[in-house]
């Protein structure tokens, strides 16, 4: 599973992109977030306030209950500020 982090999420996790293999019990975005948070204080910090975290699966915005699988591309980022 490919994970991407943007803006200050990248700053806090310290990485922009990684390949991960979460346990089989992780079947949705919320589960993935819970698992990612166990990987260190940077991740714990990045996901500490989910109100300011947005997620996309395969480049489409999703809610936290969206299901995910091993071949998905999951991205985390703050609310967008372009334009």
């Amino acid at each position, binding site marked *: 599973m490919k994970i*991407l982090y*943007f*803006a*200050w999420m990248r700053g806090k996790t310290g990485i922009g992109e990684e390949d991960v293999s979460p346990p089989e019990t992780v079947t949705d975005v919320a589960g993935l977030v819970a698992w990612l948070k166990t990987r260190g204080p940077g991740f714990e910090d990045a996901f500490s306030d989910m109100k300011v975290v947005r997620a*996309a699966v395969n*480049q*489409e*915005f999703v809610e936290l209950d969206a299901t995910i699988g091993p071949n998905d591309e999951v*991205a985390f*980022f*703050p*609310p*967008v*500020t*372009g*334009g």
Partner: protein
Amino acid sequence: MIRVQKEDFDLATELSALSAGNHNIGGITSFVGQVRDMADGEHVGAMTLEHYPGMTEKMLEQIDAEANKRWPLEASLIIHRYGRMEPGEQIVLVACASPHREAAFEACHFLIDWLKTKAPFWKLEEKDSGAAWVDARESDADATAKWDKGDA
């Protein structure tokens, strides 16, 4: 049509290409967003726009398609830049051409409002107090919501 690029753009060139030879166009509305040198009362020396390559194009295509579905447009264009820009530089261009001005205005306004909350771009401002990611504004979410029709 949509384009995501690092380079600056020339408005007249873009709009000429947009309407070239189409004599059914009665009006073209365009909006150009540019870098301001102030934010929250602090001086901004420059800013860097980060984006999500792939998803950006996908979202802009969706937004552009939605505008063309809602209004009778002869042509439409979104150009969004990424990378580092200084005050006065152009960031984004949205333009809509239609037989009638109301459609051109509404569709253009819609494009920039939707883009503001749906296109994956993030601004990092270089302020005197240091570099800071810009917070999303409530007013942008409100501006997007006003175009909701229940089917969005």
